[in-house]
Each structure stands twice: as C-alpha cells, then as structure tokens.
C-alpha cells in the first residue's frame, strides 16, 4: 500500500517528463517508463521501461498491471531467420548488478484491450510485479508513435 501511496503522490506532484523520474523498490531502480501513442483503442499499446538491480540477488519482472488496459502482458520481440515474432514472456530476468531494458525491438509490455486510445502527452500508471521485491507503480509518459525513447538528460540511450 505504501508503494501505491508513493506512486499516487508522484502522479499528483509530477508535471512534464515523468518518464525521466526514478522510482526505487528495495535494490531495484525503475526509470524511463514510456509508451507510444496509439491510433484508436483497438490496437494494442506498448510499454517500455528500464530496471536496474543494484543488489546481490537476482530478481525478475513477472507481471504488469494498469488501469489503461484490460490485458497487459509481457512480450519479447524475437527475430529468427529474419522473421519477427512476439512470444509471451512469462518473466523477464533482472540479474543482480545488471540493468534490463524493455525497449523497442526487445522485451516490452503489450497493452491489449486499451481503455482509451493513448494520446501523446498523456500519462498513465503501470504497476510492475517483481518476483522478490513486490510491486511498484510508475507513471508512464505517452510519446509520439514515432518516438524512440524519452529525452532525458541522464538517459543511457
């Protein structure tokens, strides 16, 4: 519940460029949460984020939840023999001392059953469930369909 209140406070206090904010839970740092605008609510949205594990214990992202979509799932884009497919990822490892990116062309959250179309400039909360650290909610910035990532001064990309 504390995490929820913290997240709610963040949502209320933050203004622009929330994708550049950092949320921590235990040894995990969650930042650069962003999504792309969708055309209508019929198509799935996407969710990208960066998770860093500064601890000495391996962890894993095991699920996401959001009021913005009825069926959010973790997926991985895999290109094999030149053919792209998008298998469901049961969990995304966040090994000790490493960073994992959900980013275009790799792991991503697929937001199926959108409540509303995602519009550039909107934001919505996503709750991440970790195998060992519990849950944390981050606020997700909706960037343009063309965006390649949030423009943060400290962003690694």
């Amino acid at each position, binding site marked *: 519940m504390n995490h929820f209140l913290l997240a709610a406070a963040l949502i209320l206090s933050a203004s622009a460029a929330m994708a550049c904010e950092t949320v921590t839970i235990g040894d995990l740092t969650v930042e650069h949460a962003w999504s792309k605008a969708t055309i209508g609510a019929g198509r799935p949205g996407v969710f990208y984020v960066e998770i860093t594990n500064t601890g000495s214990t391996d962890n894993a992202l095991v699920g996401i939840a959001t009021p913005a979509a009825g069926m959010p799932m973790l997926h991985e884009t895999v290109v094999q023999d030149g053919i792209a497919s998008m298998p469901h990822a049961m969990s995304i490892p966040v090994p000790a001392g490493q960073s994992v990116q959900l980013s275009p062309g790799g792991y991503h959250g697929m937001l199926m059953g959108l409540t509303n179309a995602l519009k550039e400039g909107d934001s919505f909360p996503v709750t991440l469930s970790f195998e060992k650290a519990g849950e944390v909610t981050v606020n997700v910035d909706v960037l*343009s369909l063309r965006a390649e990532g949030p423009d943060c001064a400290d962003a690694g990309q």
Partner: protein
Amino acid sequence: MLGVGAYRTRNRPARNELLPLPIGEMSWALTDHQGRSVRPKDWAGRPVMVFFGFTWCPDVCPTTLSDISLWLEDLGADANRLIVALISVDPERDTPVVLADYVSNFDPRIIGLTGPAEEVAQAAADFRVTYRRVDKDGGDYTMDHTAGVFLFHPDGRFVSIIDFHEDRRFAVPKIRRTLS
C-alpha cells in the same frame, strides 16, 4: 548484401531462390493508402525500399517506421525519388483508410500498401517474405512476418536487406548506394 550473404552462408547453404525477384518480374497488384492502384511497373526507374508489417503491431512496425523516418531525414532531398512502401501482411484489418491514418505519423514519403489476401500473398512470394497469423486468447491475433527492409536499384535489381535494428551508420550508406 554482405549481411544477407554472410548470414545465409553461416546458417545454411546459399539459396539464391530465396532472394527477392527483380521488381520488373513481380506480379502483385495492390492499393495504396490513398486508394490508388499500384503495380510493380509503376516503380520502374525508381529506387525502391520495401518492408512488410501491419498496423496492429505494437513494437516491430512502429520501430521500423521510426527508423526509416530517421534514415529519410538523414538522406534529405536525395531520397525524394525513393519509393518507400509498407506492405501490410494483415489486409483484413489494414484497409487503405487505416493505413493512411498510420503512415501519417511518419515521414510523408512512406506509403502504405494493402489489397486482397491473394495479392498480398503474391507480393510476399515475389519478395520471398514469410508471414503467418498467430491467434491469441479472446479472438485477437497478431502476425509473425519477415522484418527486414528490402532495397532495389532503379533498374529493379534487388540490392540488399537492412536487418531489423541495423545501425543507422550502416543503413543510410546502403540506401544511398541504391539511389545512384
């Protein structure tokens, strides 16, 4: 060219029959996002860049279109004669109107192509592209599809493929070579 050749050599014997046909030997008939009929002969004498995708695709397709938009920005007016086309592998959902909405988010030189299922299948066969429908829970579905970007000379010859996520430092010079 090097990437494809090296890849094929490493993974399986060279199979030239897997290379796309020259544009002039293709036989598909599709409709662009403005409702106009497009046939391979309409591209005669122009360099061509084609990729396959679908607008319901949340990750690969917008990423490819973003990449292509950036490549076109880098190339500037040099790329104005380049035909740049997204061919939908999901014609059931991707009507010309849907494609128009979609491509309007990217570089205006990108056109969307769709058509009857058999014409899309013909285009895929001509380009040696694979695609298949993958059903998901709740009646929804997604499409697996060849993710590379195909480049052709103005004379219609296949030049090379830009692989998914290929570095822009390599992609832009590859495109530039097709323009002359």
